[in-house]
């Protein structure tokens, strides 16, 4: 990763709005994103790509201020050194090979030829495209195109990485490899902003979330924190135990749950008093009345929170 001054928060959006004529892109978005992996989630058309394009300097906000590692997106020269962006569009130059793409575009960074070739080799190795480096991109599968786009965005080892629907087209193994690449990138101090409309994907990688709906930020922060802010919404908890019906009966009697559903050895409950419910389960387990195999907060996931916040139109 390039050695640059450390900024925290790394990405700052201050009252940013973007209008396309009368159509709203994003509205009054103010965010301060730290290092690590943050996901931007929301259904198609909610403003994710608009936000990423603004951060990448490809479009200008109608109002507001943006800063990426202390650089304004208008300063394309400085921004190109600290930022890597993999947009959602699949377009690449079909008549050029992966090697030609990377060498040609990275040469603009001004590195000596030997360093340039080293960086290209490393990038192709990281995305697993070495075997097809001399093949024209027009003959690539969707997954290979995605890998090339990723290679182009990470080859200069930027401080900040923006990824718009990056897992599209990748096979399960490719996804696993890529997620591990992102995690190691973040562990090294990088900042990654990843957008997806497939919520469970970002749930696997992100430690913070920004939820967009119709151009507005409806929630932001750590996934658990966001969930915790929803005080009047019951938590869903699943307990796997030997006698779920008895547990449900005791929980209703104690008044720590609002609803319960038994499915085989599993009990799924809705509770506003998760601490009280946990204490009850622990007491019953300790007294030997129940044998508890597992207990899980179901809606700690991004998808559950988003569904709660936005309602039925949340997932696409």
């Amino acid at each position, binding site marked *: 990763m390039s050695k640059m001054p450390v900024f925290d928060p790394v990405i700052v959006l201050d009252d940013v709005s973007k209008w396309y004529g009368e*159509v709203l892109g994003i509205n009054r978005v103010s965010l301060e994103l730290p290092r690590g992996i943050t996901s931007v989630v929301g259904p198609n058309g909610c403003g994710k790509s*608009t936000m990423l394009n603004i951060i990448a300097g490809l479009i200008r906000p109608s109002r507001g201020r943006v800063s990426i590692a202390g650089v304004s997106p208008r*300063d394309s020269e400085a921004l190109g050194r600290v930022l890597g*962006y993999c947009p959602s569009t699949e377009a690449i*130059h079909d*008549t*050029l090979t992966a090697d030609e793409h990377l060498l*040609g575009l990275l040469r*603009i960074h001004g590195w000596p030829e030997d360093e340039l070739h080293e960086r290209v080799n490393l990038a192709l190795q990281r995305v697993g495209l070495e075997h097809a480096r001399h093949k024209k991109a027009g003959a690539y599968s969707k997954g290979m195109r995605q890998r090339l786009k990723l290679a182009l*965005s990470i080859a200069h080892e930027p401080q900040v990485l923006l990824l718009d629907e990056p897992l599209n087209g990748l096979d399960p193994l490719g996804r696993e490899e890529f997620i591990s690449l992102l995690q190691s990138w973040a562990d090294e101090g990088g900042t990654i902003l990843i957008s997806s409309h497939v919520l469970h994907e970002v749930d696997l990688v992100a430690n913070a979330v920004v939820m967009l709906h119709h151009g507005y930020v409806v929630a932001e922060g750590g996934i658990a924190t966001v969930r915790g802010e929803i005080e009047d919404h019951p938590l869903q908890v699943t307990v796997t135990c030997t006698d779920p019906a008895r547990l449900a009966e005791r929980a209703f009697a104690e008044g720590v749950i609002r609803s319960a559903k038994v499915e085989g050895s599993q009990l799924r409950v809705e509770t506003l008093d998760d601490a009280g419910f946990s204490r009850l389960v622990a007491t019953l387990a300790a007294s030997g009345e129940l044998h508890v195999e597992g207990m899980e907060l179901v809606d700690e996931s991004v998808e559950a929170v988003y569904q709660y916040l936005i309602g039925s139109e949340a997932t696409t």
Partner: protein
Amino acid sequence: MSTVSPSFDPAMAVRQVLATARFEFLRLRRSRFSWTRGLLFSLPVFFTALVAVVITWETDFAFDDVLRLGHSTESTARRFHDFIQGASWGMWGVVLYLGCFALCGGSIRSEVEERTLHHLFLRPVRRELAAAGKFLAAAALLALQAVGCWWLSIVLFLAPHGPAAMASTLLSADGLKSMLGSAFVLVMAALSYGAFLFMAGIVTRWPAVVGVLFALFEIVLLWMGRFQWLTPAHHLRSLSPVRLDPDLPMAEMLPRTAAPVSVLALLVFTAACLAVAGWQVRNLQLDYGEAPGE
């Protein structure tokens, strides 16, 4: 917050322009329009070859004077002279202009349509410099094609009379002057027309209309006396080693401008067009029409 890099490194800027041009040159060479362009530029060559063969068949004229025809009074030489005048007008005024329109006019626009321009704009280079690199690549490719095509045409004129006659003609002082002079004019034409159409392709929504209007403007100004000075065509003619006859429709109606002044005028014209194009590119919003609701 500053909107431009605090320090500007001219050496780095030159390297970035050249790197962009190198990538763009490769892209253009491989683009899907390569065959179309090749066909466009091969037409004059084919036509020249055909005429050379027909004239050779009709006459036994010694071809060693082909490149000094401006000084010849022989009737067959006259025909060659007319042909070269027509060919140069056709080459510079039509084929190259169309080439500039296709290559320079579509340089940025085609990448926006193909949704690939962000690959370049996300690199650490000022957008104006990236645009300059793209333009240089297009102009260089055009100039190479035009010069190669023109020289091949001349060689084809001479080919029927054997290598000795060809060599003596091409290596004579007039022959070399004509070949190099024509190449220089073609390079200047690729730069000036290319820059104008490059700008038109970025600034306007209808570059084809602008291209046609500009061509008409140049033709109309042929009859506007000193106003001809405003057109690249006048300065290109001033630099041309081939003089058009006064009785031809596209003749020079204004005395030639001194070569250094014409070169300067063409370079200023090119720079002005690139400055406008650079300003527009700097402010270009690249969302590929993916705004919500579209």
